[in-house]
Structure formats: C-alpha cells, structure tokens
C-alpha cells in the first residue's frame, strides 16, 4: 500500500514522474489562465469605484497567494527531507524557492502598480505590503544560504532548516505587522478590503488562481527534473536516461 510513497524517495522515479506530470500541469494552466485572462480582462464588468484598474487583481491576487503556497511547499519539503532523510525533498525545496521568490516579486510589483492610481503612491507601509516584503527577504536568505556552502548537501540541509524556522515566523511577522500599523495609526490611504464580488468577477479570479497553481506545479516539475539530474549526475541511471 505504501509502495507509491516509498517510490517518491527514488530519484529516477521522481525524474520520470515529473516528466510525465509537467505537460498536464502546464496544459491545464494554459487553459485556466487563458480563460481567466480573457474573461477577467475583457468580459468582467468594470468596478463601480475602481473602474478598469481593478482588473490587475487577476494577476496580483494569485501571485500573492502563490508566494505563500510556494513557501509552504518549500518548508514542508525541507522538513520531510530533514526528518526522514529523503534527499528528493531537498531537490523539491531547492526547485520551489526561486519560483516562490518570483511570485513574491510579481505580487509586489503588480501591487505597487495598482497602488499608484488607487492610493496615489507606489509604496505604502501597509501591513500586507510590509509582510510580503519580509517574505521576499526570507526567500533571499534561504536561496543565498543554500548557495553559500561549498558542499551542496550541507547547503541543502542548512537552507531547509532556515525554511522551517521561517515558516514558524511567517504568522508572527504577519500578525506583528498588522498590529504594528494599528498601534501607530498613520495616514492610511486605502484599505484593500475584500469586496463582495459578483460572480462575473469572481469566476475568472478563481480560474486564475487554479491556473497559477497548475503553472506552479508544472514549473516545479520541470525545475525538479533539473535539480534531480544535477544532484544525481554521477549515477548510472542518469547516464542511461540521457544516453542517445
């Protein structure tokens, strides 16, 4: 019953499974994002307050969500690898980190582009923005710690540990930043509250969210193959798999 689980620890099996899964994820992502973009950018009605500017939510919200999802994936994979000594977990964590950092950056950039017309400024020290920025710093720390070690196995384990420590810290950072702003009530420009959305606006958003998750899955599979190949480059199965 558990054989499928044990096989996940075998690099050649992961390499083949990732290769088989990647096209499915990417095709699903293309369909979902395609539908979401067309429906969201063209057919959804403009917001009565924000006009067409609200449409950036279709790129922004999924990026922000995925930035946290990728971090969790990275930390969980790292924890599994540390606890059960499953080396593939390190490969998953290493593959997820740059993708998550890119999503975080995308969320910050799209958010500030939206902030310019709506809040009148590219950057405000709003709790959400600040905690997202700290998340980006956490990603940078994990990525550069992994690369700082000459021995890659050691770098993997150190980065995995930092990822786990960071995941404990993510809720703390989030809540402290929220309370920080409520303690010092400054000139808050606007609140990014959850508008009760009509279905015509909501469906494309959900489609984009699922599409982004599939995209993450697809890119993760592709990067994972690269990581596995790099880590196993001395192994016989790699030579056989790559032999012409």
């Amino acid at each position: 019953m558990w054989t499928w689980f044990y096989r996940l620890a075998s690099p050649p099996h992961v390499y083949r499974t990732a290769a088989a899964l990647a096209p499915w994820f990417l095709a699903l992502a293309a369909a979902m994002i395609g539908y979401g973009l067309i429906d969201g950018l063209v057919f959804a009605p403009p917001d009565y307050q924000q006009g067409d500017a609200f449409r950036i939510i279709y790129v922004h919200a999924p990026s922000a969500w995925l930035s946290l999802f990728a971090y969790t994936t990275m930390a969980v994979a790292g924890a599994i690898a540390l606890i059960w000594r499953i080396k593939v977990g390190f490969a998953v964590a290493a593959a997820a980190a740059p993708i998550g950092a890119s999503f975080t950056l995308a969320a910050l950039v799209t958010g500030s582009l939206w902030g310019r017309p709506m809040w009148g400024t590219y950057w405000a020290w709003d709790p959400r923005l600040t905690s997202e920025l700290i998340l980006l710093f956490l990603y940078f720390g994990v990525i550069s710690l992994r690369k700082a070690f000459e021995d890659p196995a050691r770098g993997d384990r150190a980065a995995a540990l930092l990822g786990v420590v960071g995941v404990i810290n993510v809720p703390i950072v989030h809540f402290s930043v929220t309370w920080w702003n409520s303690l010092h009530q400054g000139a808050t420009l606007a609140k990014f509250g959850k508008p009760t959305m009509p279905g015509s606006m909501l469906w494309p958003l959900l489609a984009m969210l699922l599409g982004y998750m599939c995209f993450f899955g697809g890119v993760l599979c592709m990067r994972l193959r690269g990581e596995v190949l790099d880590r196993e480059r001395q192994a016989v199965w790699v030579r056989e798999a790559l032999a012409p």
Partner: protein
Amino acid sequence: MNVGAWRAMRLILQRELCLSFRRPDQLLQPLVFFLIVTTLFPLALSPQLSLLRDMAPGVLWVAALLSSLLSLEALFKVDADDGTLEQLALSAQPLYVIVIAKTMAHWLVSGVALVVMSPLVATALAIPVHAFATMMASLALGTLTLSWLGSIGAGLTVGLRRGGVLLSLIVLPLAMPMLIFGASATDRAIGGESPAGALYFLAALCVFTSSLAPLAASAALRITLE
C-alpha cells in the same frame, strides 16, 4: 567524568565570560558602534530636539539591533575555528545545553551592556526620563530575543568564510516583529501611554524564542559541523 547538565552549562558560561573579559577591547567595540550609529542620525537628519524625540525609539532600536548583530558573528566562530566547538559537540552533554550557555554569555556581554548604556544615548536623543524604565525593559527583552534568533543564524553560517553579511540577511527578517514591538513600547512610554501591551508581546516573543531557538540552533550546528 560525569557532569550534570546544569553544571556543564555553568562551566561553559563561566568560560565564555572569562574569555570575553580578558579581551575588554572586543567587549567595547559593539558599544562604541552603538554610540556611533546613534550619532549618525542627528547628523544626517536634523539636530532639532523635537524631531529627534519622535524618531528616538526607532533610532535606538535599529542601532541596538545592528550592534548586537555585529558581535553575533563571533558567537560560534572562534570556537569553531580552533576546534573547541567540535570537542564540546562530542561531549556527553546535549548540544543545546552548550548553545544555551554560549547564547546567554553573548547576551550578558552585549545585550546587558547595551541596556546599561542606553540611558546615556536616550538623554542625547531627548527621550524623557519617565520613559527610561520601559525603554530599558524593552531593550533587555529585545536583545535577549535577538541573541536567540542570532544563535540560529550563527549556527547556520558558522562554517562559511564570509558569513557576516549572510547572517544579517538571515537574522534581520526574523527580528522585525521584535523591532516593531520594542520601538512601539518605547514610543508609547514617551507619549505617556501604557506600554504594557507591547511589552507583553516582547516578553512572549522572548519566551517563544528561548524555548525553541536552542533546539533549532543545535540542529543548525549539527548540520554545519558534521
């Protein structure tokens, strides 16, 4: 020889304190750094006292954070370089006992010294005297939290040749909650409000890191030492 964990902790603490007091110049450097950084702000911004009073908690906290970070790099490095750390790790004591003793020694030397010196800097920054007690309490809790967080970072970067910058990159994001509550406690005390809420949060963070950080730091040391 069979030594109990408490005794081992006390011995290591004694050794660390003894070593740092034999090198008074290294003890003073972070404190002088603290003074210099706080001096930079009035020079760079404005020597106007009313403006300084508004920024003082932030300036004080950022300076304390940076100067404490400066001495964190050496937390395990000196002992790792001459092999002492490996001998300690091979001893019968659990590694976290050693981490606790070394981190406490670091806090006693750097954190407590900062707390003792802070009224001097606070006077220069025009913080009113009635806020001193809160400021010192918050700094004491905050520097202890930072020492715990820093022990994780120092454990992760101990084997690296240029670990200093990476250490700040790792520790500073983790230290941000502490900075927020510490500065706001001081700020509220200056304004005459009750700082209890922020101080409680600082204390909670301190307890949280004191209980979990030694475990994380010893796991980190096991990774980098092996």
